[in-house]
């Protein structure tokens, strides 16, 4: 491991997952692309004193496509992800999330792991897209690897990330169509004020996930239950979304909480319209 002391900081560049896990055990914070972390000072948060960079760990940078699943390394950037999944049937929503987020220069740098592990970031695009796909995440911990559903990871994220390293995301390929609808107030680079991601599996199950409305993205289980596996039209889905809207919107600089909540049924309509056309946004 390449370890050097700065005046105030220890910055290590791990060569393997094991080295990164060891660094975490001694208190190092993870640095992936840095597009979130580097803005810590602007949020009044001081940069971590001890840092372990992942950029030299080759095994975290690959995407493997199998017949039944795809495995996405934590250090895969948004632009690499977009390139790798844009032709895969069923993953239209994930491709739209990876292409729609931020701006080209940020997408070239910002990683999947950083998107899933920025605990204070409510507007993450990949989180709802991957929730709708019922993805699993693999963590590396001092006592070995651990696989858990993304939804479980999100619930325990802050505690898990005290020592864990996220190593990969696993997406099953039983989804036949998906869509990711984001609503930024301006097109260029704004965070979405609300996000609706939907996916339909080959067995007819429809999953709906919402991002940016509450502090952490979550599945819209009340709407999923009301849909009950039926193939709903866009308007039917919108009507059910109006009846089952149990979100409490967060206030933020871009907009107030009530607005984030109120736009959801319209985004559900757009998402279902896209789903009927075979996905995408």
């Amino acid at each position: 491991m390449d370890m050097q002391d700065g005046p105030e900081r220890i910055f290590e560049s791990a060569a393997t997952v094991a080295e990164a896990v060891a660094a975490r055990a001694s208190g190092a914070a993870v640095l992936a692309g840095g597009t979130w972390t580097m803005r810590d000072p602007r949020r009044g948060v001081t940069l971590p004193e001890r840092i372990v960079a992942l950029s030299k760990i080759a095994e975290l940078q690959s995407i493997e496509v199998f017949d039944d699943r795809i495995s996405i390394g934590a250090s895969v950037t948004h632009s690499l992800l977009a390139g790798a999944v844009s032709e895969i049937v069923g993953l239209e929503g994930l491709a739209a999330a990876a292409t729609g987020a931020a701006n080209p220069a940020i997408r070239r740098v910002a990683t999947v792991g950083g998107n899933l592990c920025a605990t204070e970031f409510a507007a993450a695009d990949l989180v709802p897209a991957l929730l709708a796909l019922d993805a699993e995440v693999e963590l590396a911990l001092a006592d070995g690897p651990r696989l858990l559903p993304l939804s479980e990871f999100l619930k325990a994220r802050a505690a898990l990330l005290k020592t864990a390293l996220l190593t990969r995301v696993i997406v099953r390929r039983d989804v036949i169509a998906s869509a990711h609808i984001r609503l930024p107030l301006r097109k260029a680079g704004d965070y979405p004020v609300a996000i609706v991601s939907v996916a339909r599996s080959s067995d007819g199950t429809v999953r709906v996930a919402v991002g940016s409305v509450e502090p952490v993205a979550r599945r819209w289980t009340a709407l999923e239950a009301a849909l009950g596996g039926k193939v709903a039209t866009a308007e039917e889905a919108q009507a059910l979304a109006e009846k089952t809207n149990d979100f409490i919107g967060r206030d933020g600089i871009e907009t107030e909480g009530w607005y984030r909540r109120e736009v959801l049924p319209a985004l559900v309509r757009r998402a279902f319209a896209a789903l009927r056309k075979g996905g995408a946004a």
Partner: protein
Amino acid sequence: MTVTFQLNGERCRFHEDPMTPLLDVLRREKFLTGAKAVCREGFCGACTVHVDGEPMMSCLKPVGLVSGCSVTTIEGLSSGDQALHPLQAAFEAADVVQCGMCFPGMVMSLSAFVRDNPEATRPQIKTAMAGNICRCTGYERIIDAVADYLAVQKAGSQAKEAAHV
């Protein structure tokens, strides 16, 4: 910690905090002030440089992450005594620059874009500029200049091909 990288073709060392934004190393240590510090949040693109040939925001790039990489700034794209980069020349010829604050970043983003997307359409050019904010020009003349540049390059390469037959 010492970070070593190539800067505009020359070896460069930085001995202080590896979390220092590359932008500050360029401007404060190397006096390369082409990359501008405007938003420092990754939104405006005024600080865009190439890292291993790819445009990135230097304000959000900890210098520790460019260890072993090759960094090119607007100053290195074409130094004063060489011909301008052809896209820079096209911008100058079409008189698209106004105050100039956004242009180093605009050129760094779009020079890589035209290299990688010789067939780009107008909407694709616009999408490529989503991370480069310009407060003066209203963008249209920049987009026109890029579209014209691509058309000229294409005509040029077609003429070359025809000459080979």
